[in-house]
């Protein structure tokens, strides 16, 4: 079973973000593997261990992305494709997907995995768009994959505690839900082995992709958030009513 895992590199979770136009200042901050993608990678490695085949890590981004690619290789991916693009942050979801799809088309993959969404743009569209562009069946928010007789039985998470089983043929594209597995650490042996693994470099030009954007981020900004505590007063009943109202319509968390 040959599996391509799409992996994005994103700013570290604790990185202080300085806004610059419609992106952030990249100097002076750390980057890491997008956490949802690390679950997709782990799932790919487990499927390979069970069914054989090859795991290819595919990443789009500037030179710094190599560090995350190497991490994927150290964890057990067999080889990698790096689509080098210094301006990847300006791509819209369809533009990113078209670029990734062009690289995927050059391979014979049985399965393409993505994480659920990225922790930077957070579009959450890549997997579904890849399926459309590659004309493959897909499913998202996957919590379990079982491969039987060339078909997959999937467990998909729905809202409010519901799940659904889905049968999906191969080849296919799946977006993996975070928490589907327990992600492994790279071993020293893995890190050493990764040094000999191939990272094929590609570009938009070499892939022959140029996509007109369908949307544009005009600017990003810190949301006007007042961490000043808002104190609610009144009788317990009044306070409770006010609080529910606030949580529902202001904080929008319930």
């Amino acid at each position: 079973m040959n599996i391509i895992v799409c992996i994005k590199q994103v700013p570290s979770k604790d990185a202080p973000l300085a806004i610059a136009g419609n992106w952030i200042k990249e100097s002076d901050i750390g980057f890491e593997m997008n956490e949802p993608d690390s679950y997709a990678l782990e799932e790919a490695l487990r499927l390979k261990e069970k069914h054989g085949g090859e795991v290819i890590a595919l990443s789009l981004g500037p030179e710094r992305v190599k560090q995350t690619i190497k991490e994927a290789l150290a964890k057990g991916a067999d080889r990698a494709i790096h689509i080098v693009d210094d301006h990847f942050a300006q791509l819209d979801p369809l533009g990113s997907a078209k670029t990734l799809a062009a690289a995927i088309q050059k391979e014979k993959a049985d399965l393409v995995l993505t994480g659920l969404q990225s922790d930077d743009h957070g579009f959450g569209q890549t997997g579904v768009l890849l399926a459309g562009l590659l004309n493959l069946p897909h499913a998202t928010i996957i919590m379990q994959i079982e491969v039987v007789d060339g078909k997959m039985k999937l467990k998909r998470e729905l809202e409010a505690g519901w799940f659904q089983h889905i049968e999906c043929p191969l080849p296919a594209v799946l977006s993996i839900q975070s928490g589907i597995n327990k992600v492994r650490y790279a071993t020293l042996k893995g890190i050493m082995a990764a040094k000999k693994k191939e990272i094929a470099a590609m570009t938009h030009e070499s892939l022959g992709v140029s996509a007109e954007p369908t949307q544009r981020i005009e600017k990003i900004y810190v949301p006007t958030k007042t961490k000043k505590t808002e104190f609610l007063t009144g009788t317990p009943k009044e306070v409770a009513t006010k609080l529910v109202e606030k949580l529902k319509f202001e904080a929008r968390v319930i």
Partner: protein
Amino acid sequence: MKILVITEQRQGKWNNASFETLAAAQQIAKDTSSTVSALVIGKGIAAFADELAAKNVAEVLKVEHDLLEAYTADGYCAALKQVVESAKPELVLFPHTYQVRDFAPKLAAMLGKGMIGDCIGYRNEGGKLVFVRQMFQGKTAADVVFVGTAPWFASFQSGAFRADLLAAHPSGKAPVNAVSVTVDAEQIRTRPLDLFKEAKSAVDLTQAPLIVAIGRGIKAPENIPQAEALAKALGGEIAASRPICDEGWLPMERQIGSSGQTVAPKLYLALGISGAIQHVVGMKGARTIVAINKDANAPIFEIADYGVVGDIFEIMPALTEALEKTKTA
């Protein structure tokens, strides 16, 4: 401009985010002198269509087919592509549900268009619609605009608009128009099987979106059921600060803090927790923090978004009741 809202139902039940998006569409329509059409898709959906027709919409589109009874991305995309092509809306809006995430970007791409997903608001800048969404896990907001020609596709995050502001039809009922679509069984490549719920096994508080946490202020184990009732009304998990677990009042796996779990839920409701740093490091990443404590100087208020200075034993039952009420409303 013509706005089309794609609503969502499953097994005879609405996804209520549909009405929030319909309310958003009505607001945009008012701002831009547009009309709103509402679409319902499935099989045996006449009652849903009638319910939509009672809202302030120009028309309801009813898309019925045997192969659309159970949701599949392939079936929905095939059908909705035909509807968008024939109805010719400029703006197609969805509630940002798990199901919409599963098919809407592909539907847009099939028409050569993009989708701005998970929006929390919009602005009308002299006829140009600017959509607001979050980036970097909510650390920043972004203004996003469409480039190129209509149709444009966007989805609104649940809670971004208020369904209770939805306007009723001014004169009774909008027309319901059935739209026939062609869907072949061969087009549907995935097969949806059983829908099920799982009995909760081991607790993973890191995955819980809503957490009710108790501290020393709970005073005695006999009082814990009150907090549990509140957690249940909220649909959240119960958790605690270290002392409660040390006492054995709750299992250690429910402990939040430096020696327990680190969580970042959407909502963290701290009841009778003073906010010692050992606890705070385990929950300060929560998106919204509510603190209820009798001590107005408790450090927990420094990081709380909403605070109540008062007796948790008075507020817990009142809050439980208020939450129950919103569920039945």
